[in-house]
């Protein structure tokens, strides 16, 4: 029985792949999902073909995953499905410089019986340069859906693991029945994080081990060459680690180093200077002090698409003494400096790109708008999402802009892409169109602090859909002065019955309610962030669980006998 099922699913996957490639076939489509055409024309839309474009009215014709024409006098073939684009804005599909979307968390390998923490096997110590991200990639993951919904069409996926976790791969965020693979073995992913409870356990150990692995790979290569052209030479020991490092020492692929702050940037650069590999810095959050260094070293950089949360500066009060005010000023200054970094990088002339790795997917556009408000030009913001990552990842030939012959990766929105009111209506990936629901956003008369027509106080019944099935419970929100507090009940993941957690960071901005809470699941603390749009007595939104992706949630507010004042 199970076997038959398996066969059927394999068949359908194969057939699916078939349909994706062929336009004609001799059999009806058993899945019923095959699109009737792979040719589309989005007519008379405002097209921003590249970051420098001012936007002009044009029709974009795509066929079999390739842009066939951009212009006003295109002859549209009969099989083209027409999408009226008169009110729509088209941008090149976004490219994520590096992401974890769809990457399945790897179980730590089992320790052997004779395990010695001072000299662990490479695999256990996080040194696995032979591994490939594509083997850990699941296109059906909700993280992929979330990222695509934000306009991302192509990304470099980063393998999960330790200091040298493996090779990255380039994929499109496309159809479920395709591998979506563009290229394997793109870069070696590295970090300064040590292995827990074994060598190398800290950044100093990792840096020493990196030098060790690098230099011994070089020596292994020399021995291999001597062995290949001489007799009487002992067989060189070829370990998976050294074999996995060969392309790096040969300069064929870069090391993508995950570094958060300026000191880590300097550490990665010092290793590079010492050893001489190609380098991409990824995941930068605090880099204000190394902008000149990034510029002068010519290093390619992927900035994390996030900004620090503004809770600390929003919590600042007026009625305090001078010394507290001076402290406030410094925190505010630090915040302002942090959000203005991208603008400074632009001014320095660094063609940076973004990485979504480590950033909250739902907040990507909000973070980008914050950076723009702090001085980043819209042109540079768009370049960091399109042409710059294309160039950094070496895919400019077929991605990054809207031009005839390029891959049909598009973002189609209801307005200028960086405007808060704009919503993404379609995302085209590799010629496949993904449609998104456009929500009516209610204008809130009040100044966004929740005093307007929307009320969230009371007891809500909610229901969420997760891969484990649907689950639900209640959350209660009460208001005390200008701040909210509350609790939520949910099915206890580490046992049976219901568990309760306090709600944190409850806020109402316009009609958007957001809050988070912590769940203890088998000793692991998970933070769940909920955000949704409130309309009357109902809320629709998404629930984001750290490392697991996001899931839909809906809730209704119970009627109350107490009048809302």
């Amino acid at each position, binding site marked *: 029985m199970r076997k038959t099922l398996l066969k059927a699913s394999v068949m359908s996957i194969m057939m699916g792949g078939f349909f994706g490639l062929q336009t004609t076939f001799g059999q009806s489509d058993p899945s019923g999902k095959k699109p009737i055409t792979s040719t589309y024309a989005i007519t008379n839309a405002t097209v921003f073909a590249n970051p420098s474009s001012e936007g002009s009215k044009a029709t974009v014709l795509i066929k079999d995953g390739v842009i066939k024409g951009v212009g006003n006098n295109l002859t549209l073939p009969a099989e083209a499905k027409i999408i009226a684009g008169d009110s729509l804005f088209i941008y090149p599909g976004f490219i994520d410089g590096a992401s974890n979307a769809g990457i399945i968390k790897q179980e730590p390998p089992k320790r052997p019986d004779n395990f*010695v*923490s*001072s*000299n662990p096997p490479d695999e256990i110590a996080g040194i696995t340069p032979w591994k490939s991200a594509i083997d850990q990639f699941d296109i059906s993951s909700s993280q992929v859906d979330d990222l695509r919904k934000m306009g991302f069409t192509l990304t470099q996926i980063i393998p999960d693991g330790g200091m040298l976790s493996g090779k990255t791969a380039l994929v499109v965020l496309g159809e479920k029945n395709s591998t979506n693979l563009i290229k394997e073995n793109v870069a070696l992913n590295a970090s300064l994080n040590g292995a*827990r*409870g*074994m*060598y*190398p*356990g*800290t*950044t*100093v*150990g990792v*840096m*020493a081990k990196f*030098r*060790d692995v690098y*230099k*011994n790979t070089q*020596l292994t290569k*020399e*021995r291999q060459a*001597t*062995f290949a052209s*001489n007799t*009487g*030479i*002992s067989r*060189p020991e070829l370990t998976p680690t050294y074999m996995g490092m060969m392309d790096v020492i040969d300069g064929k692929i870069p090391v993508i180093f995950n570094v958060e702050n*300026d*000191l880590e940037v*300097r*550490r990665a650069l*010092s290793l590079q200077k010492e050893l001489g590999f190609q380098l991409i810095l990824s995941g930068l959050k605090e880099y204000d*002090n*190394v902008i*000149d*260094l990034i510029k*002068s*070293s010519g290093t390619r950089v992927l900035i994390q698409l996030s900004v*620090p*949360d503004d*809770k*600390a*500066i929003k*919590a*600042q009060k007026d009625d305090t003494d001078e*010394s507290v005010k*001076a*402290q*406030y000023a*410094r*925190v505010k*200054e*630090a*915040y302002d*400096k*942090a959000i203005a970094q991208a603008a400074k990088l632009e001014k320095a002339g660094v063609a940076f790109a973004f990485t979504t790795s480590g950033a909250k997917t739902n907040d990507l556009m909000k973070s980008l708008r914050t950076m723009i408000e702090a001085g980043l030009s819209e042109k540079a913001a768009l370049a960091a999402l399109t042409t710059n990552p294309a160039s950094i990842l070496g895919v400019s030939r077929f991605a990054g802009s809207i031009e005839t012959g390029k891959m049909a990766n598009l973002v189609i929105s209801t307005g200028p892409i960086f405007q808060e009111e704009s919503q993404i209506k379609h995302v085209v990936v590799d010629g496949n169109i993904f449609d998104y629901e456009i929500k009516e956003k209610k204008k809130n008369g009040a100044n966004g602090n929740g005093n307007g027509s929307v009320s969230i106080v009371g007891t809500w019944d909610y229901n969420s859909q997760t891969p484990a099935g649907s689950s639900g419970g209640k959350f209660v929100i009460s208001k005390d002065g200008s701040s909210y507090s509350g609790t939520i009940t949910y099915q206890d993941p580490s046992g049976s019955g219901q568990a309760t957690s306090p709600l944190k960071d409850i806020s109402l901005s316009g009609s958007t309610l957001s809050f988070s809470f912590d769940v203890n699941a088998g000793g692991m603390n998970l933070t769940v962030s909920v955000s949704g749009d409130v309309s009357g007595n109902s809320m629709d939104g998404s629930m984001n669980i750290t490392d697991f992706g996001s899931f839909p949630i809906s809730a209704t507010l119970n009627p109350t006998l107490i009048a809302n004042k």
Partner: protein
Amino acid sequence: MKKLSYILAALVGLSMQFAIAQTPKGSILIKNATVITVTKGTLENTDVLVQDGIIRRIGQNISAPSGVQTIDASGKYVMPGIIDAHSHVALDVVNEATAPIVAEVRMKDVVNPYEIGIYRALAGGVTVSHAMHGSANVVGGQNATLKHRWGSSNPADIIMQDAPRTIKFALGENPTRVHGRGNGIQPRSRMGVEAILRNGFSEALQYKKRWADYNAAKSQKGNTMVAPEYDERLQTLVDILDGKIIIHCHSYRADEIYMLINVARDFGIKKLVFQHTNEGFKVAPEIAEYTMGASVFADWWAYKFEVYYSTAFNAAILQKNGAITSINSDSAELIRHLYHEAAKTQRYGGMTDDEALAMITINPAKQLGIDDKVGSLEVGKQADIVIFEGHPLSSYAIPQMTFVDGVKYFDIKEDKDDQRQQVSATEMVEPIMLTEENHRCMQDTEHLFETANALFSLHNH
């Protein structure tokens, strides 16, 4: 002047990075002070002229060359910048505790120039500190000697680039607890510690020979040898055997101190300094004869079993027996008043002013191999200088200004409430850790003995 050098650098096509790599050098004239040179006596009503970071003249009635700022130090005391031979300030990681020998790790990789401890040390007159690896391993990592050039964001700027290499060793309870009791591997006892050392150096000799044999053979005709494996851990031990690195060894008991002296003698190692050395007074003549001395606490012991037997006369006894002796902090708190710590050797042991002050200046400089550059006020030396209100050995002494390379990095009159270089954008109040736990010899080792933690109340020095 600075502008000109930039222009020149641009003209000759030197990269910007090269220009940045030059640390700032200052020029000042300090007038009419009581100048405590430490090595050449104490001079009343004396001026010190510093140009481009170097002490050019010490004498009377020196007039300031044009462009050189004059500081009137009438009634004040001027002494060399204090040197702390044992510190963990400005390090992001202290222990790579995972193996009994980690000679390959470099503390220079994890120097953090933003740490407020640097500024606090400057406020205590400390201009040079020895940023050490922790004491979790028999052979720890290579240390960094720092110059407290506060305000730079580049770790390279606060590393004293012309200081020799030094490395951390540790004997006794810390390495046996982390590895033996914590992880069930050698060393579990003091005998194991010695075995680790002897095996390590013996392996290093074999490693050296392997490479020497290969290098000799590879240019020969018909050579069939291939390059041996590279091992920076063993290479570093080779460098110690070759006299290129000074050992600074965490130690308490006389027997283990004498053990390491014997190991060093057997392997021909001469560059060796003992740290803590609480029972040093029992083996003071041996320390004096065979090593570069001991760096000790003024009056601090009994914080764990192996360090119950000690005395506040330790430093004086070591000194009187001819051992180079320094007083250190091993603490982000004590580093702020090492001059008080030095003064305790007068109360316990009757040291003279110069002998007491030498313990926080020229003696630690000798132990770090930098006594030709810093550690005393002498013409030609780097201008690391502190100006004190009150004699530095008085209880009422207060540092007024601290200079590194003739550049002022601390001035009590310009001491703002908030001297942090970096402020978190997301936290209104950052945690401040200025407690006893600031002794970080055993930092980053906690995960290694979670079970041991439950059994023993750990103390971390």
